[in-house]
């Protein structure tokens, strides 16, 4: 196993957004406009509010898309608000969004960016 050092990212958070199927692209686009680099999207099946809305529940799709985005903590509020707005999450049945703090994250960092970060530290 390699024992090379890695550069870990602290001050990062995970935004998870659950929306009706077909809405994820709009929400991801809104997140990117706010500064997010990318997103991971997968399918799920929801239960809860649909059963409580009665006849109006037919307008709430059971099939869901779950969006995960890792963002820096200084961007998280802006990305969160953009996603909330784009997904119309203030409307009953449209979805749910939450933030989870991360201890750390790691990914490939190009040497040029790594050099800039090290320069900024010194």
């Amino acid at each position, binding site marked *: *196993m390699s024992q090379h050092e890695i550069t870990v990212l602290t001050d990062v958070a995970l935004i998870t957004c659950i929306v009706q199927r077909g809405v994820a692209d709009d929400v991801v*686009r809104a997140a990117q406009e706010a500064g997010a680099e990318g997103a991971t*999207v*997968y399918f799920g099946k929801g239960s809860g509010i649909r059963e409580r809305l009665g006849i109006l529940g037919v307008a709430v799709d059971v099939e869901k898309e779950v969006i995960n985005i890792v963002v820096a903590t200084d961007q998280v509020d802006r990305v969160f608000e953009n996603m909330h707005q784009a997904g119309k999450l203030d409307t009953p049945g449209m979805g749910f969004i939450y933030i989870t703090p991360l201890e750390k*994250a790691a*990914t*490939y960092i*190009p040497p040029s960016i790594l050099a800039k970060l090290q320069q900024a530290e010194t």
Partner: protein
Amino acid sequence: MKQAEKLITCILHRGTAIDMQAKLKEEFDIERACSHHARGVGKSAPLARRGMGEQTEKDILNVVVTEDEAETVFLFLYHEAGIDRPHGGIIYMQQLG
């Protein structure tokens, strides 16, 4: 007293997660791992074009580890799963309640 546990999540290329689950079992005797598929959207992905960026198939690997082994497993997955290479994915860790 129950030991604190952490959740390590990796976003990897499609087809990688199953191999990593086997390696976790072999190396650390960890069986608390699961994986599923997802769609990745990113401007920094290769061949990204205008708009949201390229969409690629991903594997998501989730593994629950104890606090003692968290650091070792994190480093192991970072190197073995190819996350230390360009467009290799991302790995992150969070505390479980």
